[in-house]
């Protein structure tokens, strides 16, 4: 039998943390895990949902090893997964710059950046495999930036004092994903991966084994072109469906990014870990109107050379807000470079949560610089003076162009305006060291799991984690599970479990279609987004979170009684797709609020206003909250049950994060 939590506590045995010193754990694991021999690999089918960095790298690697892979994505091509939009870069502990970097240092920065809320063993493994990722990508032909000597170039990202970020112009995610996509394409061409594009997973199928234990054995998916609901079997299911930032409606995520697969897993017994840990990215283009459909990120790499400021004088801020003054006209002595002032050691390169809160603090005090008062400046005039316009253009040209197309203002001449926006979710489905969820045979990789970033993710570490999971971790750990499955024959999708799962999906769709109310899906989603931003955003309070829960419950009622979906269910229907996703966003929003309410401390991206130091920094409560907060589904409209995985730091001393000195 699989291990279960004891008295609501997940033990290290259940989390499958290998024995031994930190730096030996992964090697020990690999030395002793079970493997599947080549002849048996051919007999095993694996479903991989998602073609982002995590899904594509996993699908390609598993197929190369000999497994039969079924791979799914919503977009019309695997190359278009949301990972494509990542701009800034990917971290690795190569120490090519000889600036003192090491695996330990990358580990330490990540643990500290996550505010000591991640698992030590996982983070160390991440740092350990980071170097192989860069090697792999270069071998695939990823055109990383190089120096004149022909070797790879690096830049700095927030939360680190070394240069360990590899990049490909401002299109790193694109190039890494195209690398993984090319490996995937090769396997599709060979027939080892069967690719299903424009398909959306709508449920997981569980079948009991001979011991009466549930195992993930397949999925139900909707063909988005024909509207047909289809059944798929596999010996194991891997989910790499990305994060749930779009709960906020406005985010930097792509339009189809969603949390539905996570909710499907959750409803089948997988724990949802730390849902309240969401990252608000400090440098996004401010909102410009109610019709707005998404927010655009300006890469963190801009903080290498850009300086963030607001005016010192309130009267200047008022004029900026009224549009009678331009940023460039404010003299140097009247500018408040508040990050450099508050955090001299890290300056503009403090981690994202710190930078975002500092921007909010200034804007709350009235120093915002645009018509809504919700923006700060990101200024390149010093960099242009120091490096010349050409060098700045070479480094950031495409980002500047993007900004100008959206805002209609030239950032070479007038400072950019930026404001925080929801960007990434550290929380996600709980997985053990093997990336297996609390449901047997169900694995979760990439942003969709909770694993490595604790309460806050450092820049350039999501790409690292997605590819680590997909290329170098899952292909090993999944074998430990599959080794016992070689005698399990392929099952028919006519089994009653498949039929029942399909019927439940059909019923849900029918229910949605038959509401025929007055509200569009988006109008309800926008309402949810505002509640999330106001009460579950950058500054949270017990009172606000209780209000949020109440309001979200009302939205749920409104949605299920008054949504209108045009068209038919059995044909292409974008509104139905959006409605199915929104139904889950509403549940996730509530779960985020419940988790945020229970966590009476501030850590990383989770800031409870009741818990801060006198100068406004996050105040952790290690004695009470040093654990992963896992939520277990107990039934529709029932309160979830809290299960804890204690985080006992064995190898690293927990300190107060300090970016000042």
């Amino acid at each position, binding site marked *: 039998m699989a291990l279960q939590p004891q008295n609501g506590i997940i033990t290290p045995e259940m989390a499958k943390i290998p024995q031994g010193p930190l730096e030996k754990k992964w090697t020990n694991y690999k030395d002793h895990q079970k493997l599947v021999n080549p002849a048996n690999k051919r007999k095993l089918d694996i479903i991989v949902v998602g073609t982002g960095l995590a899904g594509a790298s996993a699908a390609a690697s598993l197929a*190369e090893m000999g497994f039969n892979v079924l791979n799914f994505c919503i977009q*019309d*091509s*695997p*190359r*278009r997964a*949301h990972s*494509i*939009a990542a701009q800034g870069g990917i971290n690795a502990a*190569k120490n*090519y710059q000889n600036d003192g970097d090491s695996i330990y240092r990358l580990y330490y920065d990540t643990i500290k950046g996550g505010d000591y809320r991640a698992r030590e063993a996982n983070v160390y493994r991440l740092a350990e495999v980071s170097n*192989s990722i*860069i090697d*792999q990508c*270069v*071998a*695939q*032909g990823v*055109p*990383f930036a*190089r120096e004149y*000597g*022909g*070797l*790879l170039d690096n830049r700095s990202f927030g939360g680190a004092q070394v240069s360990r970020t590899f990049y*490909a*112009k401002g*299109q790193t*995610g*694109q*190039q890494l994903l*195209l690398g993984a*996509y*090319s*490996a995937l*394409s*090769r396997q*599709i*061409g060979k027939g080892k991966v069967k690719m299903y594009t424009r398909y959306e997973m709508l449920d997981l199928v569980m079948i009991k084994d001979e011991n009466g234990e549930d195992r993930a054995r397949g999925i139900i998916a909707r063909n988005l*072109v024909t509207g047909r609901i289809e059944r798929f079997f596999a010996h194991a299911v891997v989910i790499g469906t990305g994060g749930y930032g779009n709960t906020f409606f406005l985010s930097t995520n*792509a*339009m*189809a990014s969603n949390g539905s697969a996570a909710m499907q897993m959750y409803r089948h017994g997988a724990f949802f870990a730390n849902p309240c840990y969401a990252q608000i990215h400090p440098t996004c283009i401010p909102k410009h*109107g109610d*019709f*707005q*459909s998404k927010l*655009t*990120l300006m890469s963190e790499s801009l903080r290498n050379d850009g300086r963030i400021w607001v005016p010192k004088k309130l009267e200047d801020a008022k004029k900026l807000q009224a549009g009678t003054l331009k940023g460039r006209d404010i003299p140097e002595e009247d500018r408040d470079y508040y990050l450099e002032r508050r955090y001299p050691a890290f300056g503009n390169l403090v981690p994202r949560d710190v930078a975002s809160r500092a921007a909010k603090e200034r804007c709350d005090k009235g120093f915002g610089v645009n018509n809504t008062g919700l923006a700060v400046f990101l200024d390149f005039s010093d960099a242009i003076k120091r490096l010349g316009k050409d060098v700045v253009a070479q480094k950031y040209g495409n980002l500047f162009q*993007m900004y100008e*197309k959206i805002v*209609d203002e030239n950032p070479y001449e007038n400072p950019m305006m930026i404001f925080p926006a929801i960007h990434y979710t550290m929380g996600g489905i709980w997985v053990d060291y093997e990336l297996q969820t609390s449901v047997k045979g169900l694995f979760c990789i990439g942003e969709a799991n909770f694993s490595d970033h604790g309460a806050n993710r450092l820049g350039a570490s999501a790409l690292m984690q997605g590819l680590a999971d997909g*290329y*170098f971790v899952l*292909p090993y750990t999944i074998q430990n599970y599959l080794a016992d499955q070689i005698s399990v024959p392929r099952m028919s999708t006519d089994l009653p479990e498949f039929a029942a799962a399909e019927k439940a999906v059909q019923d849900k769709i029918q229910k949605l279609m038959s509401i025929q109310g007055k509200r*569009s899906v988006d109008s309800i989603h926008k309402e949810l987004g505002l509640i999330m931003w106001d009460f579950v955003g950058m500054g949270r309070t017990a009172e606000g979170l209780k209000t949020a829960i109440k309001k979200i419950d009302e939205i749920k009622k409104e949605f299920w009684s008054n949504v*209108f979906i*045009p068209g038919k269910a059995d044909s*292409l229907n974008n*509104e139905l797709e959006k409605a199915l996703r929104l139904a889950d966003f509403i549940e996730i929003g509530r779960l985020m609020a419940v988790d945020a309410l229970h966590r009476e401390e501030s850590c990383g991206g989770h800031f409870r206003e009741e818990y801060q130091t006198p100068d406004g920094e996050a105040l952790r409560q290690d004695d009470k909250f040093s654990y992963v907060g896992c939520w277990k589904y107990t039934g529709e409209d029932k309160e979830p049950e809290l299960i804890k995985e204690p985080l006992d730091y064995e190898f690293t001393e927990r300190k107060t994060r300090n970016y000042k000195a």
Partner: protein
Amino acid sequence: MDQNINIKVKVWRQAGPKEQGHFETYELQNIFQGASFLEMIDILNEKLISEHKDPIAFDHDCREGICGMCSLYVNGHPHGPDQEITTCQLHMRKFHDGETITIEPWRSRAFPVIKDLMVDRSAYDKIMQAGGFVSVNTGGVPDANAIAIPKPVADEAMDAASCIGCGACAAACKNGSAMLFVSAKVSQLALLPQGKIEAARRAKAMVAKMDELGFGNCTNTGACAAECPKSVSLANIARLNREFICAKFKD
């Protein structure tokens, strides 16, 4: 300064791949010029939904010019009248009050319409599956700095690699040729030492697949590069031709 404008949009509506399509015209009032083009379609769709009509189907995802999902012929241009951008990056400030804007799907033999403005571009994926990769498996590769690559070469490979696979090149071409797309991948990989080894075979396999899938021949009109949102250069086509001749020569 951005203002509110009133416009008409003439949109291609087609219920399914085998149905007859037609243009339909809609009027929109008070569209803010700071809105993106796709946000304008969102507004129109919200209006259609409120009238219990079928919203316009169109492809989009990242809405920041990188995923290649958005398409659309706007006023006769793939990705609209602005330069070096995708449709999702187009803003309403490029249009004036009272204007009628025509919106059509990609029109190319190899990209059949699925519904309204959505087309099937899986042919591009199939070309990639035929050879758009370096044949390496995960693991067992040399250190990333083992091979130095001159910066100008790496930069050129990066420029070729910026292709987002949107299909505008084939849609813009009167012959429906996919040469710009194919040449971008062939060039990126042929320029780098890692990809050079298979360069000839790759060029041949990808071109053969392109022909098989019904894309037309390249007659060097240059329409593709003129409309490419990522400024992928025609020089790539010249390089592809060289690799291709080289491959034929070896046969």
